C-alpha cells in the first residue's frame, strides 16, 4: 500500500515541478523584450531516496532553484563600456553643435567678413574723401563685430546648455543611486530568507548600466550580495542601503557654472569635479570647460588682437574732420576676477593699448607686495607695492583691505569677441575714420597701413595672419568633431558586440521556450497518466474489498 501512495506523492511532486517549468517558461516569454532581463531556468533535482529492502528507491523530484542565467564578468564589462559610450555620445552631439557655429562651408562667417573689412579699408584708401566708402567701411566693420558677438554669445549659450545638462545629469545620478540603495536592501532581505532575487538583481544591474552611462563607476559586491558603487577614483556613491548625493556647486571662478560636489555624511560638500572619470557627465564637463572654453579663448584672442592692431594704427592717423587719436574698435578693457575670500580688491585700466600682451596675468598679494605673473608665459612680470602699479600697458589700482594670500586674475582679452564693437566716435561719425597720416583729405597712407594688417603675421607669436589663425581654428573644431564621431561609432560597435554576447547568454529564445513548454507539458501529461494509472490500481483494490 505504501508503494501506491508513494507513487501518488511522486506524481504530485512531478506535477508541481512541471508546472513550475511551465511557469518559468511563461515568465521568460513574457520578459522576452524586457531590458536587462536574464532568462531563468528551473533546476530540478531528485529528492533523497528511501532505503528499501532491495536498495535505495527514488521518492520524487524537487525544485532546487530557479536560476537566472547571467555572466557577471560580461555585465561588468558592458557597464564599463557604457561609461565611455555615454561620454563619447555626449561629446559627439555637443561637438556637432559647436561645429554648426563654426560652419563656414556656405561662407558669410568671420573668415569672409575679416577680408571684407580689410577690403573696405582698401576701398577707403582708393578714395579717402568719399563718404560712401567710409559708410561702407562702417557697415563692414559692424557686420564683423556682429559676427564675433554672435559667435561669442552662441558659444557661451552652448556652455550654459552643457551646464544645464550637467545639472539634470546630477539629478538623474541621484535617482539611480537611490534606486540601487533600495534594491540593495530588498535583495538582502530576499536572499537572507534563502530565496533567489533574480528579478531584483536584473533590475539592479540594469540601473547600474544606466548609471555607468552617466558617470563612470567601479563596483564590488559584498558577502551579503550588497553592491558597493564607487566613482572612477574611489569616492563611495552607494554602500549597502546608503547613498551619497551629488550636488552642483556654482563655481565663481568659472562664470558661476556648476562644479560637481558630493554631499558627505558630515553634510559638507566636497568637490568631485576632477574625479569624474567618464560617462555623460565627464563628456559634458569636458565640452563645457575644455573644448568650448578653449575655442572661446582663441576667438577672444583673435578679436582682441584685431582690436589692438587696428586701433594702434588707427589712433596714429587723422580723420576727415581733422581729429586724431581715435580708436576704431571700442578699446579693450581690463577684467579683474578676484578669488572668493579675498580681503582686498583690484581695479584696472589700460593706459597703453599698444603695449598690451593680451595674455592673462595672476596677481598675488603676500601682505607686502603684489606679484604679477604672466600665466601664458609663466614669467614673473614684477613685484609692486601699490597703491597703483603699471606693467605691459595696464595700470592696476589697489582697492584697500588686502590680505596676504589674496589672488586675482587679470585679463585684457576675456570677453573680447562677445563684447567687440565699433568705437562710439567712429560709429557715430564716419569722418572720424582715420585714413590719413597727416590731416589732409586725400592722404590715404593710414588706410593702406591698416589694410596691410591683413597680410601681417600678428597671431600666434608672429607666425599667422588673422585669417590663417581663424581657418586653423575651424580646422581644429572639425578635427575634434570628427574624432568624437569616429570614436563614438567605434564604441557603438564594441557595445553592440558585447550586448550580443550577453544576449546570447541571458536573452530569451522563443524557440527554446517553446521546446520547454512542450517538454514540461508532455511531462505533465505523463505524470497525470501516472496518477490515472495509480488511481485505477486503487479502484481495483477498493472493488475487491467491496
Amino acid at each position, binding site marked *: 500500500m505504501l508503494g501506491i501512495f508513494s507513487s501518488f506523492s511522486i506524481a504530485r511532486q512531478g506535477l508541481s515541478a512541471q508546472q513550475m517549468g511551465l511557469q518559468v517558461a511563461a515568465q521568460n516569454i513574457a520578459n522576452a523584450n524586457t531590458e536587462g532581463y536574464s532568462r531563468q531556468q528551473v533546476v530540478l533535482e531528485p529528492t533523497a531516496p528511501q532505503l528499501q529492502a532491495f536498495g535505495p528507491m527514488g521518492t520524487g523530484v524537487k525544485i532546487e532553484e530557479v536560476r537566472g542565467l547571467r555572466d557577471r564578468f560580461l555585465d561588468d564589462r558592458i557597464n564599463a563600456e557604457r561609461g565611455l559610450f555615454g561620454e563619447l555620445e555626449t561629446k559627439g552631439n555637443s561637438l556637432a553643435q559647436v561645429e554648426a557655429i563654426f560652419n563656414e562651408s556656405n561662407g558669410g562667417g568671420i573668415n569672409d567678413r575679416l577680408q571684407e573689412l580689410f577690403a573696405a579699408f582698401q576701398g577707403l584708401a582708393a578714395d579717402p574723401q568719399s563718404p560712401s566708402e567710409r559708410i561702407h567701411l562702417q557697415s563692414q566693420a559692424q557686420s564683423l563685430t556682429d559676427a564675433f558677438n554672435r559667435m561669442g554669445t552662441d558659444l557661451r549659450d552652448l556652455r550654459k546648455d552643457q551646464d544645464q545638462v550637467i545639472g539634470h545629469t546630477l539629478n538623474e545620478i541621484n535617482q539611480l543611486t537611490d534606486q540601487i540603495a533600495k534594491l540593495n536592501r530588498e535583495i538582502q532581505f530576499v536572499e537572507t530568507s534563502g530565496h533567489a532575487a533574480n528579478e531584483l538583481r536584473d533590475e539592479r544591474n540594469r540601473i547600474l548600466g544606466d548609471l555607468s552611462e552617466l558617470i563612470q563607476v567601479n563596483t564590488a559586491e559584498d558577502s551579503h550580495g550588497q553592491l558597493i558603487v564607487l566613482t572612477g577614483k574611489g569616492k563611495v556613491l552607494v554602500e549597502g542601503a546608503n547613498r551619497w548625493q551629488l550636488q552642483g556647486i556654482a563655481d565663481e571662478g568659472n562664470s558661476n557654472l556648476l562644479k560637481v560636489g558630493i554631499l558627505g555624511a558630515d553634510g559638507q560638500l566636497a568637490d568631485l569635479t576632477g574625479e569624474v572619470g567618464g560617462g555623460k557627465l565627464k563628456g559634458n564637463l569636458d565640452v563645457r570647460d575644455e573644448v568650448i572654453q578653449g575655442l572661446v579663448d582663441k576667438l577672444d584672442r583673435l578679436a582682441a588682437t584685431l582690436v589692438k592692431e587696428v586701433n594702434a594704427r588707427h*589712433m596714429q592717423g587723422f580723420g576727415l574732420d581733422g581729429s586724431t587719436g581715435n580708436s576704431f574698435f571700442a578699446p579693450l578693457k581690463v577684467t579683474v576676477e578676484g578669488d572668493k575670500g579675498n580681503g582686498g580688491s583690484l581695479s584696472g585700466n589700460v593706459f597703453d593699448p599698444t603695449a598690451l600682451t593680451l595674455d592673462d596675468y595672476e596677481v598675488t598679494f603676500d601682505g607686502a607686495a603684489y606679484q604679477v605673473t604672466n600665466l601664458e608665459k609663466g614669467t614673473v612680470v614684477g613685484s609692486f607695492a601699490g597703491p597703483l602699479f603699471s606693467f605691459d600697458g595696464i595700470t592696476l589700482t589697489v582697492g584697500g583691505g588686502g590680505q596676504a594670500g589674496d589672488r586675482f586674475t587679470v585679463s585684457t582679452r576675456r570677453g573680447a569677441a562677445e563684447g567687440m564693437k565699433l568705437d562710439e566716435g567712429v560709429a557715430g561719425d564716419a569722418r572720424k575714420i582715420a585714413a590719413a597720416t597727416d590731416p*589732409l583729405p586725400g592722404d590715404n597712407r593710414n588706410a593702406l597701413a591698416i589694410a596691410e594688417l591683413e597680410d601681417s603675421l600678428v597671431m600666434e607669436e608672429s607666425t599667422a595672419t588673422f585669417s590663417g589663425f581663424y581657418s586653423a581654428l575651424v580646422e581644429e573644431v572639425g578635427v575634434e568633431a570628427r574624432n568624437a564621431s569616429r570614436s563614438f561609432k567605434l564604441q557603438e*560597435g564594441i557595445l553592440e558586440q558585447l550586448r550580443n554576447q550577453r544576449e546570447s547568454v541571458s*536573452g530569451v529564445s522563443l524557440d527554446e521556450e517553446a521546446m520547454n513548454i512542450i517538454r514540461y507539458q508532455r511531462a505533465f501529461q505523463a505524470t497525470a497518466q501516472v496518477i490515472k494509472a495509480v488511481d485505477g490500481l486503487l479502484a481495483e483494490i477498493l472493488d475487491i474489498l467491496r
Partner: protein
Amino acid sequence: MNFGSEKNVRVTEKMFYNSFIGNLTRGNRQLLESQERAGTGKQINRPSDDPVGMARILNFRASLNRIRNFTQNIVRGNSQLDLTDTSLDSVGNLLDRANEIAIAQSNATASPEERVAAAEEVETLFDQAVQIGNTTLDGRYIFGGFKSALPPFSTDGNYRGDGGSTKVKIDSGIEAPLNIRGSDFLVTDLDPAVEGPTLLADLHGGSGVTPGSIQITDRAGNQAIIDLTGLTTVQEVLDAINAAPGIQVTAGLNQAGNGIALADGTPSPTQNLKVEEVGGGKIALDLGILADRPGDISGTDLNPALSLSTRISALRAGAGLPLGSIQIVNGANEATLDLSAAQTVGEILNLIDGAGLGVSAGLNPAGTSLVVTSTDPASTAVVKEVGSGTTATDLGLGGGSDILGTLGRLKEALKKNDPEAIRNLLEQVEDGLDRTLALRTRVGVRQNQLEETQQRLGGLEMDLTAFLSEVEDADVLEVYSRLSLQKTTLEGLVAATAQVTRPSLLDFLR
C-alpha cells in the same frame, strides 16, 4: 551582426531585431550623407567632413576674395590713370597750340596788334591749363596731392596742393603709385622742409601760427605749461619745450623733416604723452603736436612757405638743390649768373637783383617757387639753362615742370611785343611738351603694371577657383552612383527583412 569571436552562440529573436535595426540605421545614415552631398553639390558640408579640406577651402576663399579686391583696386586705379593721361594729353595739345603761336609771333612780320590778340589766346590756354589742373574724379581733385578736397589751382595759377603721393594696393605687399601732382608739370613747388631757423610765420603756406601756450603731460604724469607767445622760429619752440622744467620730453624735428617730434624719456611709462592747448588757443594744433598718445609724437606736416631765409639745403623736402648757373635774358640785357655759392633763397634773389639786368626777383604769391620779372615795360625776362644744367628748371624759373609759368611769360612777352623773348620762350614751351610726354610715359608704365598685375591675378583666380572646386565640390557622378547604390542596398535590406521573417518553432505547433 557582430557576434564577437564566439561561433557557437545561442541566437535569440532580439538579436535579429537588433541587427536589423542597426543595419537600417547605418544604411539610412549613409544615405542621408550622400543625399546632403547631392543636395548641396558640396563634398564638405561641415568642418568635420574633412577638417584639412575645410581649412584649405577657407584659405582658397580668402585668396580669391583678396584677388577680387585687388582687381577692383586696379580697376579704380586705372580709371584715375586714364583720366590723368587724358588730362596730360590735353595739356600737351595746349602746349602745341602755344608752340604754334610762339613760332608765328616770333616772326618779325607779326604786328603788335596781332601779338596782343595772340596774348589773349595764350591767356585762354592758361585758363584751360588751370582748369585741367583742377580735374576731379568722384569729387577728388586728382592733381592736388593729399590736398584733394579743394581745387589745387587758383584762377591765377597759384598751387595750393601738396607733394602727397597716393598709392593703391594691387597685390599683397605691392602698392603702386597712382597720382601725378600739379607740381609735377604745371607749377614748381620747392617744398621746403621745416628746420630750426624756419619762421613760425612761414608755416602752413605762410598762414603762420596763432600765438599761445601749450601744456605737455609726460608719460610719468609730470606736467608743464609752456608759453610760446612771442617766439619767431621753430628752433625757439623746440628750445622752449626742451627747457620746460619737470617733464621728460625732448623736442626735435620729425623724421620726414616736415614737422616737430616729441620723444618721451620716461623709463616705465604709466600713461599717454599728452599735448593740450591752454585757454582755448590753437597753437598746439598749428604746430602739429596736439595729441594724446601712448608713445612718442611725430608731428604733422607744417608745410612751410618759401621765405628769404629758407636754406637751399631745406628745399625739396630737405633733399636740397644742387645749384649751378643760369642765364637771364631781358631785352638787351643778358648775363650768366653762378648761383652755386648761394646758401639761402634770399641770396639767390640778391644775386639776380644785383646783376643789373632790369629784373626783379621774388617769391610767387603761393610761396612755392621763385619768379623773375622784368621791370622794363617793353621786355620780358627769360631765364635759360646754361649748358646741360637744370638750375633754372629746378628753381621754377626756366619752364619744363612749370607750364603755367611758361604760359604766363609767353603771354607777357606777347603783350609787351618782345619777339626776342617769344623766341627764347619757345624752348621752355618745348620743355613743357617734353615734360607732359615724360609724364604720359610714366602713367603708361603704371597702366602697364596694373594691366599685367590684373592679368596675373585673373589667371590666379581661375587656378584658385579650380582648386577650390576640386576640394569643395562633390563629384556629381560619384555622388549619384553612390546614392543609388545605397538606396538599392537599403531597399534590399528592408525587403529581405520583411519577407524572411525567421521561421519559428511556434509556427509548427498547431
